[in-house]
């Protein structure tokens, strides 16, 4: 039934030249060819413009882009989301969305203009001369096909191996990217792989045809820092060995500084600056690059900056910031801890897979104790699977601890009935990771913020409206934005909505589970600033759950490092960052990309 389906290609760039005015001086291609041969140039993008067809006519996503990638070189394109960096890379691969096309300019790959070759030729080049390592390992593998088969098919269809020999080669390739037990792993499905393993498989896929040019689109941004480092090392090692040119797309300046020879900065579809990595990042010329540098999560604590602004140098001596007035007036006894977690464990039972097989116990959190002082910010860091999110869920009273106790303001969490639980929810509010999926797309901003007020019977309609407007002002959302829907907001604006919603009931504790991880650096800095300001103004207590150590340094007072369900290190941010006591913490710190960049700044 498929053969009646399109035998013409659905792919993007074929129809491009038809409506695009191609201005090509007669001598340009010849020159480009000559240069390419002479200087080992693999890719040369000339005056490239990419348009997307929209209902309001064509929208230009990339304009007037020029860049060159030489053999064995790594060129990083840096910019925030929407800057056109991914569009540029996809244009090179001929993988633009179906409404996108090359409107102007040329993409010289060796001696062919990829902007104007046939779709068939483009398909031939992909998988042999051009490779892709995509961004998100969770969504880039076909979920219902074995990993090995997904690599085999590329080898077979590109005529690199016969059907019979493909698997042996696939195992070699998986082995090469550092996947242990590759032969067995090749027979598994993506859901049986961890994120890091999937990313390794994707790298094997991208390099399977030994391409001359590899496009790596944020190849590790979805992974933990320690995993990130290992994978980037592997990628760098392999491409160096094979002499592959790499076009690295990233929003992470540190990563670009560390891994690239040339850095290209994009902003609003245009290349605003490019040059050798160190030069661009240490002496930025363009305003946007300067802003990007300023916003990058640095290892200088935001708290120190805030303190300096107010001239309160003395607080720096005391690592634990003085608690607010209310603590002084309130409980004099034992401590001013708002939350006390004592020796808490959480054991999950995993059901066996066979008919008669036994279920197994999995200890997600193992004997963790911590105090969250009132008015302070405590961060829990660790890789995924370290148990940090489970700990947060127990503090939020979403999960019950298997052992141990959690007390909040002197009362035992989860001990009372349904009413107590609802009362508790008023005082403790979460802000979740993904601002794209944690807001109901059918609720206006006003309704999203108002919802908790309704649920907890807060005043009448007028009182609620006043409260919502007050909250919107606190998180710097305009009145006009209250009538909008999530789809019309940027990631940063959505996270402001999520924060306003969390603050609606005047909670005492706000639990931020990777609350800024999905945001661009500039926006991330704004949100962190907002959170710090709100803490000051409202005397909030924060629990930050994150894998991003740079963020921790910016916002937290105390930090706990978790590994495999246990707390391996605990202390003030300065002690942990400046003199980490365990190897694990040191590994985490070392893995922050561009750690030494600040020295140069």
């Amino acid at each position, binding site marked *: *039934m*498929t*053969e*009646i*389906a*399109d*035998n013409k*290609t*659905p*792919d993007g760039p074929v129809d491009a030249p038809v409506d695009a005015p191609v201005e090509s001086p007669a001598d340009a291609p010849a020159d480009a060819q000559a240069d390419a041969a002479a200087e080992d140039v693999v890719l040369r993008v000339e005056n490239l413009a990419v348009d997307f067809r929209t209902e309001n006519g064509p929208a230009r996503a990339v304009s007037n882009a020029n860049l060159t990638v030489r053999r064995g070189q790594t060129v990083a394109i840096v910019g925030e989301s929407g800057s056109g960096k991914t569009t540029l890379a996809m244009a090179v*691969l001929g*993988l633009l*969305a179906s409404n996108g096309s090359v409107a102007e300019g040329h993409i010289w790959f060796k001696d062919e203009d990829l902007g104007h070759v046939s779709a068939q030729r483009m*398909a*031939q*080049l*992909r*998988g*042999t001369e*051009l*490779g*892709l390592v*995509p*961004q*998100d390992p969770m*969504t*880039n*593998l*076909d*979920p*219902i*096909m074995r990993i090995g088969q*997904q690599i085999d*098919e*590329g080898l077979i*269809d*590109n005529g690199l191996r016969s059907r019979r020999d493909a698997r042996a080669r696939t195992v070699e390739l998986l082995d090469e990217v550092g996947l242990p037990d590759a032969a067995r792993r090749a027979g598994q*499905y993506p*859901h049986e792989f961890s994120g890091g393993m999937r990313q390794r498989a*994707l790298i094997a*896929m*991208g390099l*399977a*045809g030994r391409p001359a040019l590899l496009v790596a689109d944020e190849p590790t941004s979805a992974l933990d820092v320690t995993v990130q480092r290992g994978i980037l090392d592997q990628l760098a090692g392999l491409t160096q060995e094979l002499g592959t040119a790499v076009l690295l797309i990233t929003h992470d300046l540190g990563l670009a500084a560390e891994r690239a020879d040339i850095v290209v900065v994009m902003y609003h579809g245009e290349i605003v600056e490019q040059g050798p990595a160190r030069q661009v990042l240490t002496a930025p010329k363009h305003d946007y690059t300067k802003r990007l540098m300023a916003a990058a999560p640095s290892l200088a604590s935001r708290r120190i900056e805030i303190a300096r602004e107010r001239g309160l140098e003395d607080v720096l001596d005391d690592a634990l910031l003085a608690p607010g007035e209310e603590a002084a007036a309130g409980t004099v006894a034992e401590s001013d801890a708002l939350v006390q977690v004592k020796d808490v464990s959480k054991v999950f039972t995993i059901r066996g*897979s*066979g*008919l008669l097989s036994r279920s197994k116990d999995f200890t997600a959190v193992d004997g963790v104790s911590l105090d969250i002082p009132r008015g302070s910010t405590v961060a829990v860091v660790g890789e995924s699977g370290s148990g940090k999110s489970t700990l947060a869920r127990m503090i939020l009273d979403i999960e019950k601890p298997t052992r141990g106790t959690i007390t909040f303001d002197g009362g035992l969490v989860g001990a009372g009935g349904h009413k107590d639980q609802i009362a508790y929810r008023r005082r403790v509010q979460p802000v979740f990771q993904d601002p794209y999926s944690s807001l109901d797309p059918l609720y206006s901003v006003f309704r999203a913020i108002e919802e908790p007020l309704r649920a907890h019977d807060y005043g009448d309609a007028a009182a609620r409206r006043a409260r919502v407007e007050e909250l919107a002002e606190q998180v710097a959302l305009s009145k006009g934005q209250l009538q909008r829907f999530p789809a019309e907001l940027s990631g940063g604006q959505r996270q402001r909505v999520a924060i306003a919603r969390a603050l609606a009931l005047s909670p005492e504790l706000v639990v931020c589970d990777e609350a800024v991880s999905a945001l661009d650096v500039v926006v991330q800095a704004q949100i962190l600033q907002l959170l710090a300001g709100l803490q000051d103004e409202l005397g909030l207590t924060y629990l930050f759950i994150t894998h991003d150590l740079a963020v921790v340094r910016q916002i937290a007072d105390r930090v706990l490092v978790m590994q495999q369900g246990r707390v391996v290190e605990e202390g003030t941010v300065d002690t942990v960052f400046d003199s980490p006591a365990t190897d694990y913490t040191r590994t985490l710190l070392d893995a922050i990309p561009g750690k030494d960049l600040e020295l140069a700044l």
Partner: protein
Amino acid sequence: MLRLIVQRLLLLIPLLLGLSVLLFAWVRALPGGPATALLGERATPEAVARINTLYGFDQPVHVQYFKYLGRLLQGDFGVSTRTGRPVLDEFLTRFPATIELTIVALIIAIGIGIPLGYIAARRAGSFIDHSSVVVSLIGVTVPVFFLAFILKYVFAVELGWFPSTGRQDPTMIATHPTNFYVLDGLLTGEWDAAWDALVHLILPGIALGTIPLAIVARMTRAAVSEVQNADYVRTARAKGIRASRLRGEHILRNSMLPVLTTIGLQVGLLLSGAVLTETVFAFSGIGSFLAEAVFNADYPVMQGFVLMIAIVYALVNLFVDVSYGLIDPRLRRQQ
């Protein structure tokens, strides 16, 4: 996988028990009691008393229920009050007809629905896409009996291309070892009988298949639209694989997951008998027989057929769930 099948079969037990209680209570709750229902409203008190003793309607309700249940377990679903034959026999002779009709309807629904939905999604906004929307809308909005009448009038009565009623030409002499008429013809080598039975299935098959066709086409279109924009499809294209492999192995296979559920639900519905279609074409499947049973207050047939249809429906859904696991490895673990 085995665990799933065993679990689901065990779940079927309480389901059928519950249904048997409902069916039992329903007949007992009829105005005037089951005897009056059987004999009609003008029955004499003596006749009612005789029937009550004969069928045990005078015994305590729980005793009656357990006796009823006991008979069910032995495969005794009672006797049709209209034909005088055992309900189980009536079901088994007619069910093959319904299965045949279902298969033809499904071939039409899947054979046209999936390609139509696929092409519509791959060429979103094209003429084919727009016409597929129109076709689907007509498919779900036109009442089945109306479509059946139109088909019969145009293609059977006016044009005479197809027979208008029945499963086979009544003048045809054919043997029926399995009651699947097309299969019977093939088994016995009576080719003309097989062909004749097949021709009789076309019009009712089209009438019955139209709604599932529309639903399958819409589901396929939605699923393909989503899958073709998935990251892993773009990654597969980046590998430079053949277009046919991209379509078949990646796009279509992933799109089939939600479509399969839809098809499963439709098969269940089709197998429970198409009352309207079978009636219009005088096609002797379980649907038309059940309808007649309702008009004639044939309670044993209604009770028995409902129970057996429930079993068929549950088994079809189990089959769909199992095949879901075969396509999607992620579900094997969870199941």
